């Protein structure tokens, strides 16, 4: 039982009411006669456990990042204890540490943002070694050769069947699209630069890939929309590509979400060069505000050293050319690519200062907090440990102004609207963008809220909402969100006073959309197409469910 806290459960319209939360086993219940334990949350904030919709925490590309950055681990070592494992890492922590860090911040569910199907067994191995959280991953399909051919040839039935087969084979949660078409081109060192470019080899456009996969996503009844990293990421002027991408979905919009655009900050640049870069957040936010079927997450920057890692091979190559930093590329046959480049974001740097402004602008200009989520695209824009800092920026105009003083590039202040925005997120809105809305966007019906039947994933933060001026006490806000007072995961008390006190392992969620009819059709496609494009036998491509330590199957269409 969590007693007497100020509960913020936006999904159930509870906005700071002082009330008790009852837990039995691993679920939230109505009441209890004799609670086995009582956590005294008097004077504190109680929220559902955080649900992170997009972070790079497990898999081939993440591990290549760790491998190529021993210097990022130096000085960031975590000794073992009698119940926690050791590890290292600042921007790309090792798996055990990643789990502990999330848990300390009150996060209980994390979605790995991008896994190449061919290497998904690796993603599962790392997720199985990531404690404290429930997890899932999004499956990269926007540059899959077989999918591209099926889309081009217009066969929705075959496209859906094959997509379902892949998702089932790799035990993925949803469809991820990165630089649609661009990564096919990257297989020969090229890229695409607009959603109507023709992609080499397949004579298809990014627009056709996006709309096609959105339709497949609907046909399959997937719980989450397509999750899209748009073309032209990181290029001045790219806000127009983002808007074109959004408009491509206008004919298909409905009242429920159709597309999610991720780390939108990286895709909201106006201007036409690094020297003239401006924020395009206002224009993008306007499009988001007028479309109920569109959600975004911000990908907020922090001024720190970190590691960029995305499937966007050509973008990462361009970043290497720009910065001269070390560069790793990892193409995955017939599916996707990956690129890794270390970066340092500096306040005094015009571009970085504008980038920083954009993420916050997006969150502050989009009116509906249920459609704009807080992320840092960990570790791309900032390591996960900066989540509390981002919340503090959103909740405190004073903190934003403080950040925009001193070394902050003065020209940057004229390149965005941020200095003129004084909106401050309320605690309720903070709960929405870090848990309630993300759980809803993922259709994780037992997460992100504390109603009866919810998973007993709860975070208690040591802040008194009746006595705290969140705007002025931004330092305290950061500290409180960085180390939760208590965290309960699946009914177990796992964090006390910001320290992990019990190691638990969560479940790996995956979505099964492979009906028997689809399976039959897919197997025909696999029999005729797979061997042409892969160096591995299809039977070895499939990851059996019992390979995962604690799988949880969710049936598409039933959630």
């Amino acid at each position, binding site marked *: 039982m969590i007693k007497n806290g100020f509960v913020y459960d936006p999904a159930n319209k509870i906005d700071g009411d002082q009330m008790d939360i009852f837990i039995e086993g691993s679920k939230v219940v109505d009441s209890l006669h004799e609670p086995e334990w009582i956590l005294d949350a008097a004077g504190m904030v109680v929220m559902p456990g955080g649900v992170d919709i997009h972070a790079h925490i*497990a898999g*081939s590309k*993440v*591990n290549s990042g*760790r*491998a*190529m*950055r*021993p210097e990022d*681990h130096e000085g960031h*070592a*975590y*000794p*073992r204890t009698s119940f926690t*494992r*050791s*590890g*290292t*890492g600042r921007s790309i922590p*090792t*798996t*055990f540490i990643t789990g502990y860090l999330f848990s300390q911040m009150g996060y209980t569910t994390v979605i790995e943002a991008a896994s190449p199907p*061919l*290497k998904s*067994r*690796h993603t599962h*191995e*790392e997720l199985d*070694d990531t404690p404290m959280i429930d997890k899932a991953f999004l499956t990269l399909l926007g540059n899959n050769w077989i999918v591209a051919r099926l889309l081009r040839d217009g066969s929705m039935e075959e496209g859906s069947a094959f997509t379902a087969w892949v998702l089932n084979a790799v035990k993925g949660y949803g469809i991820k699209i990165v630089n649609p078409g661009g990564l096919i081109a990257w*297989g*020969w*060192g090229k890229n695409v630069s607009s959603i109507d470019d023709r992609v080499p080899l397949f004579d298809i456009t990014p627009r056709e890939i996006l709309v096609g996969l959105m339709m497949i996503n609907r046909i399959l009844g997937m719980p989450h929309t397509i999750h899209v990293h748009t073309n032209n990421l990181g290029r001045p002027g790219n806000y127009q590509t983002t808007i074109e991408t959004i408009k491509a979905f206008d004919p298909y919009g409905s009242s429920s979400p159709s597309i999610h655009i991720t780390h939108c900050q990286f895709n909201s640049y106006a201007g036409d060069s690094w020297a003239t870069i401006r924020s395009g957040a206002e224009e993008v936010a306007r499009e988001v505000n007028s479309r109920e079927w569109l959600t975004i997450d911000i990908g907020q920057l922090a001024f720190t050293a970190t590691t960029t890692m995305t499937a966007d091979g050509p973008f990462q*190559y361009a970043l*290497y050319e720009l910065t001269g930093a*070390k*560069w*790793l*590329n*990892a*193409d*995955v*046959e*017939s599916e996707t690519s990956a690129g*890794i*480049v270390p970066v340092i974001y500096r306040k005094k740097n015009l571009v970085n200062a504008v980038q920083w402004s954009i993420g916050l602008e997006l969150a502050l200009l989009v009116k509906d907090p249920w459609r704009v989520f807080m992320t840092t695209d960990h570790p791309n824009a900032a390591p996960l440990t900066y989540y509390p800092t981002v919340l503090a920026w959103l909740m405190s105009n004073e903190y934003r102004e403080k950040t925009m003083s001193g070394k902050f590039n003065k020209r940057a202040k004229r390149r965005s609207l941020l200095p003129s925005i004084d909106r401050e997120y309320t605690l309720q809105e903070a709960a929405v963008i870090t848990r309630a809305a993300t759980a809803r966007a993922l259709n994780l019906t037992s997460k992100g809220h504390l109603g009866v039947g919810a998973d007993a994933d709860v975070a208690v933060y040591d802040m008194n909402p009746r006595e705290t001026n969140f705007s002025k006490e931004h330092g305290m806000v950061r500290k409180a969100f960085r180390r939760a007072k208590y965290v309960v995961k699946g009914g177990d008390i796992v964090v006390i006073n910001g320290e992990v006190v019990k190691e638990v392992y969560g479940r790996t969620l995956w979505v099964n959309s492979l009906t028997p009819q689809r399976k039959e059709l897919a197997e025909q496609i696999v029999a005729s197409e797979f061997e*042409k*494009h*892969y*160096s*591995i*036998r299809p*039977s*070895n491509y499939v990851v*059996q469910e019992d*390979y995962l330590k604690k799988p949880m199957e969710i049936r598409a269409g039933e959630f």
Partner: protein
Amino acid sequence: MSRTIHEDVPCPFCGCLCDDIQVTVEDNAIKEVRRSCSISKSKFLNYTQDRLDMPMVRKNGSFVQTSLDQALDRAADILAASRYPLMYGWSSTCNEAQRVGIELAELLGGAIDNTTTVCHGPSLLAVQGLGSPQATLGDISTKADLVIYWGCNPMHSHPRHLSRYTVFSKGYFFKRREDRKMVVIDVRETPTARAADLFIKIQPNRDFELLSALRMAVRDEEMDVDSVAGVPIELVEELADIMVNASYGVLFYGLGLTMTAAKSANVDSAILLVRDLNARTKFSIIPMRGHYNVTGCNEVMTWQTGYPFAVDFSLGYPRYNPGETSVIDLLSRGEGDAMLVVAADPVSSFPLEAVKRIMKMPLITIDVRPTPTTYRSEVVIPSAITGIEAEGTAYRMDGVIFKMKKLVDPPPALRSDQQVLLDLKRKVEERIG
């Protein structure tokens, strides 16, 4: 009589991890193997030969057979009493076993290292400094019209590499051998060199100079010499042209680069060459990893500790400093007071200084056959062969992952490496409290 034909069997020998092997099993014995190279066939067909069949411990200098439980007890006693145990080997077993090994090293405050330390360690050091442009092997088969093998001899070390993944493979675009160009650079004319369209014979230990010269040529810089590393300058420039004009090139390399004079500087230079080439065309570089799961060991160690090999846990957290924390250097400095070897034979392969130190400490070996290392051990624990008698996960040289199959039951006294190590870990935990 029961007869099963297993299809799509991944082979537990080399970094090719061919997964199209067909194995026929009759009455729990392997009878026939198809599609494999001769080394693979030999591993599958001879799996029962020369096996260690019972655990053994030393009593008064001689080996005495014992139960698994007693052997594990003795091993746990040794490890629990040690101050700085070293755990080595790992590349020829599965990830699941490697994970237990890492946990054990962490628990005991010891050091853990794998065969990378004598093989592609310099490659990993180079990647740490520079990154690297890589691809999976299917990309090579599909796209590569230029394949370069430098300082390696896959015809011997990775026999099906050329036919499954490179110049003899039937790729999507390049179906015939003559559609692709193969270049071999080596100090002698190997069987692989004889299959090449262009063989460049290089003076031993001069790879760094040739790589540097190629980098200059790729950048159209003039070189005022007649030859580099024994290679006429015209040939250097010709090779640079071939590389720049390829639509997709790949450089495979082996110990000819990692273990000759300039070592990791060779690999630095090779990575930089391939990186430079990416400004002009598409090029990848892939190290020819030897053991079928050395890549997996690097991956597991990296995601659990942050570092791919040579990890020390003496301070309770992972520390990495090759040259200091790598096992041969530890041994050569007289460090370590107990050693656990899994699926490796360091007494055969390590330098004498290191072996002398190993001889001075109690040695526990988990392996399938007698080796000079088992002969020197205090405790020998035979185990089931991963990929034949036990399942487990392994990573190919390009990071693609396979679940190795169990085709037959192991001999009754034998357990998988993972199971042995889990039991060992439990006994160690009981002792150290």
